[in-house]
């Protein structure tokens, strides 16, 4: 903790703050605000009720109107503070509102009905988290189902991609064979074809294979990526051939060389690719949208999309689910981010 504090209060040296310190901290603070502002706003909004979300001007903190249970009424009644008229200063509960008039009662004296105009009152608010936004996701919507779909697709696609790409990269970096350069050029040249161009043919193939509306229809087409092959190949080129020769002298099969020598030694590059793959798959929208049409197969991204109707949008659920969708990817990034810098630095070819 002391070290964190020392780091956060670093200065250019000397006891007094140099003007560059002020500039740096101002710049960094601005950066933090720009980066985290929207995320914090999102999290805050996800705890607001639908009514609170519609409020103008918007507030930073989530508010809810105070309610009170009154004898003789089944539902809790919202409380208002009277700002004018004969009841000024009193806190009344609203029974119903008709146009500009509202029927109120005094919670202390529930038998007497009072009639007030609505511009003479303002709601009594308190800071409260609308956790029902989150619990609803589990109760009303099958959030766990979508979560499972997304997780399954992400994990399987990433694992498959790492396996396929690393094997291809191993062959392209460590074996001499006729046409190796051609194969590599072919792989790299597919980078130049935008995904949208192959969308229709890919869809036809997936349908033909009977993978339409199946999670595997999302997983398999993304198993091999030219970026991944190229990234891993460049890294594997830096592994000395002598180590492979040594393994061969040690009677290791080629498969064993791949599994026990090449894979562990490529770990930094594989970690980078894993992070990228997880982010790609988790955030993928277009391809799952095309392949998955039944809601029980929806991924989180598709489910989020389905909250946005043509006529109305369920903002509170949408925001809550967005937060839950962000969390896993943020965790992955937090734990693996140190590999990104080292991995990318060392894949740049020494």
């Amino acid at each position, binding site marked *: 903790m002391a070290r964190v504090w020392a780091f956060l209060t670093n200065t250019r040296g000397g006891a007094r703050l140099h003007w560059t310190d002020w500039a740096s901290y101002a710049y960094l603070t601005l950066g933090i605000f720009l980066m985290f502002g929207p995320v914090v706003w999102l999290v805050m909004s996800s705890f607001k009720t639908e009514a609170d979300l519609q409020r103008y001007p918007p507030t930073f903190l989530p508010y809810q109107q105070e309610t009170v249970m009154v004898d003789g009424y089944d539902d809790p009644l919202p409380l208002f503070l009277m700002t004018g008229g004969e009841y000024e200063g009193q806190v009344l509960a609203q029974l119903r509102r008709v146009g500009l008039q509202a029927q109120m009662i005094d919670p202390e004296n529930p038998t007497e009905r009072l009639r007030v105009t609505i511009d003479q009152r303002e709601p009594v608010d308190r800071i409260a988290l609308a956790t029902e936004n989150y619990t609803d996701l589990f109760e009303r919507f099958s959030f766990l189902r979508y979560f499972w779909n997304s997780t399954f697709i992400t994990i399987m696609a990433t694992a498959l991609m790492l396996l396929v790409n690393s094997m291809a990269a191993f062959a392209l970096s460590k074996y001499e064979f006729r046409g190796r350069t051609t194969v590599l050029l072919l792989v790299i040249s597919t980078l130049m074809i935008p995904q949208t161009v192959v969308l229709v043919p890919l869809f036809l193939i997936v349908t033909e294979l009977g993978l339409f509306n199946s999670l595997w229809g999302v997983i398999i087409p993304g198993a091999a990526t030219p970026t991944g092959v190229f990234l891993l190949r460049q890294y594997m080129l830096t592994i*000395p051939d002598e180590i492979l020769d040594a393994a*061969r*002298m040690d009677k290791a099969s080629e498969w064993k060389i791949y599994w026990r020598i090449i894979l562990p030694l490529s770990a930094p590059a594989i970690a980078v690719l894993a992070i990228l793959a997880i982010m790609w798959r988790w955030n993928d929208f277009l391809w799952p949208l095309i392949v998955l049409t039944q809601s029980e197969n929806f991924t989180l991204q598709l489910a989020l999309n389905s909250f946005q109707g043509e006529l109305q949008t369920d903002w509170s659920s949408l925001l809550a689910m967005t937060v839950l969708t962000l969390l896993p990817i943020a965790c992955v990034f937090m734990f693996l981010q140190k590999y990104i810098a080292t991995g990318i630095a060392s894949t740049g070819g020494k």
Partner: protein
Amino acid sequence: MAKLDLRGVRKSYGSVEVIKGIDLTVDHGEFCVFVGPSGCGKSTLLRMIAGLESITAGEVAIGEEVVNAIPAADRGLAMVFQSYALYPHMTVRQNLSFGLENIQTPKPQIREKVEAVAKMLQIDMLLDRRPKDLSGGQRQRVAIGRAVVREPNIFLFDEPLSNLDAELRVDMRGEIAALHKRLGNTMVYVTHDQVEAMTMADKIAVLRLGELEQFGRPLDLFNTPANLFVAGFIGSPKMNFLQGRTDADNRSRLILDTGDTIDLPEGRFTQAPGQAVTLGLRPTELQPDPDGALHAHVGAVEQLGSESYLYGTFQNGTPVTVHNPGQTTIRPGDKVTLTAKSTAMHLFDTETGLTLRA
């Protein structure tokens, strides 16, 4: 029995031939050193024996079995690489046991063997470290241990000491020689350092440009080099070479280009009268002598206390090195006359470079 036979072994990369037909036999238990300047093909030859390079023509036989078509893993050899090639992600113990695991050795046996080898090479306290935490010498030991633990028929060493500092190199040289004595295996050792070759080998193969220049015991190579190249390569400091021509009337009389004349011993060489020849004299065999036939000008003197070296030139500018046991009073700028024992003379045909020894 692990006898190694090379019969007419050749290797080409495209149209470039790098190994030009090599025949040699290493008997069981022999320590054979391939030596030569860089680019002579010695490492390639070793890799061909190991099975890491294909053989373009000829045969490699281990025992009596031709192994051309047998993959490296199944030849029963072990190799120590120049860069050690330890598996960086494994501990020393895992490095040593990897080969044994691959031949399905039972776990307790692996443990036992690894520990025995580690003890022998004095790396038993390093077993749980990774290669990056070891010094050069320790890595070298691990690399040797990895080869030893599988009990191969033949050990192959590819310049294993070239990454070590001079002092450590001398130590490891002794250890490898001792290891050879203890294990009694056939070993093939590649180096560019002729001192290593001389000190360790039972047999030396001198290679140049993919050809075998001479194959034999170290002292045979030293005493009776087959050609100019071997004569110049083996021995330190290098042998002095003097160009000349035998007298047209008296083939025992050698007229050197330096202007000096020298008498060759009768019957030792097969030189013809009037033939262009090169006289080879080792620095240790040349001595300053007031009655000497060779006139030289001293350029520099190195006094090492127990021995001294004179560096100079003959009258025509040919450089000469003289080794003098003990200390000397000769100083730079002096003119000296040198003499050589007739038994220590080497004579070569200047055109072919071959020895003229009878």
